[in-house]
């Protein structure tokens, strides 16, 4: 690990995180390691859950936000479930990903999803030939017609909440990990 001077630490990082929705609990961590021992992906990450939490508390912002660990999670919520101090690690992870996204660090798998939602209202393409095939299949089973959401509303929400850049056609922001 690279040695850091105290002045390179971001002392505000833990507060930046802990004031966000669902992440107040960060400050309670006692470094027991329960989260890491039950983590579904623990052997696949470059930094285990309790280490990520410690790094946030220490202010190692760049290390955390550029780690692969924050993206390699199966969202099983076992960390949050079992933490004896009520640290909501799986939510804190989502928040850390949000912060990484703001810095332009976005795996393509993720940005593709929001673009699909922007174009279809769903995470599965439902236009043109796809729509015809899906409708035909549903008709055959006697299932009701799909009523698509108003896409202007969906895109308004996406833009107002800060993801407008990601749904622009010409966006070059994402970085493939």
């Amino acid at each position, binding site marked *: 690990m690279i040695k850091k001077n105290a002045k390179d630490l971001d002392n505000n990082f833990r507060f930046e995180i802990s004031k966000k929705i669902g992440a107040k609990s960060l400050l309670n961590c006692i470094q027991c390691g329960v989260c890491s021992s039950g983590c579904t992906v623990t052997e696949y990450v470059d930094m285990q859950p309790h280490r990520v939490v410690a790094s946030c508390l220490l202010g190692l912002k760049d290390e955390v936000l550029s780690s692969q660990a924050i993206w390699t*999670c199966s969202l099983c919520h076992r960390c949050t479930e079992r933490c004896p101090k009520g640290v909501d690690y799986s939510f804190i992870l*989502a928040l850390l990903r949000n912060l990484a996204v703001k810095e332009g660090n976005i795996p393509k798998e993720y940005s593709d999803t929001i673009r699909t939602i922007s174009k279809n209202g769903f995470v599965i393409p439902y236009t043109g030939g796809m729509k015809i095939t899906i409708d035909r299949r549903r008709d055959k089973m006697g299932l009701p017609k799909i009523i698509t959401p108003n896409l202007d509303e969906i895109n308004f929400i996406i833009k107002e909440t800060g993801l407008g850049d990601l749904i622009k056609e010409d966006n070059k922001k994402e970085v493939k990990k």
Partner: protein
Amino acid sequence: MEYALYLGCTIPLRFPHFEYAFREVANILDIQFKEMKGSSCCPDPVATQSLNIDTWLTLAARNLAIAEKMGLDVMTICSGCFETLKTTHVLLKENNEAFDRVNLVLTKIGYEYKGTSKVTHFTELFSQEAMLEKIKNVILRPLDDLNVAAHYGCHLIRPSKIMQFDDPERPESIDTILKVLGANTIKFASKLECCGYCARLNEDIGFKLVEEKMSELNKLELEVDAMVAVCPACVSQYDRKEKLLSRKTGKELDIPILFLPELMAIAFGIEIDKLGLKNRSVKPMKLIEKLKT
């Protein structure tokens, strides 16, 4: 009993036969639905939440606002939708600031989120005492010759402070339903393991998790006729990866994966051929033969 039926995306668009089985079962059990017109993707708890929690909560609150206008609680048929909508419901109740932020956006497009509609998953409804009694009374084809493994998946029960349903470490709801259908349910070590579908950036994780669970079930002394799950992501993950793993390793993994409502539909006497079980990668031919006798 009436609900606003929230279908999500994956089931209606990719696995409509799951929806068919669910509707048939609900109909037999006398559960009424109104369709949620204009609802969108829940949105998915993996990508959307990771990109921006506010986008996730606001799109979810828009969906919930549609149900609120109908004056009904929301029925979900996918654990991912259940997670997103229930988490939104709980978080926005606890956090006034987020509640206001969400509504500030929603009012501009003519919606208001109040938090009045509760969110449920069919497993929760079907495992209630009164419903189990009802289920007992409509069974035409008891499943007493079947050994069935239950897969709970993660989002149905965790984190328990949000989902507030069943026991997060020792869940029983699916097993209870299976037992009422007559099936013999199986105890196994990897029962609560994740399917790995949401670990998007590394497919090895999913392969490892699927292999572990399915190998364990294959090694048991008694023959497992099927595994059931209550989420389309779990069903498709095990089904597809079992097939791919068999091809890759030469070791046959052939336990069919069923969506719980499919097995209920069979027990309720719905024609098996109408259920689309043959679309599975792991074809449940042995199971179908057994069921037809």
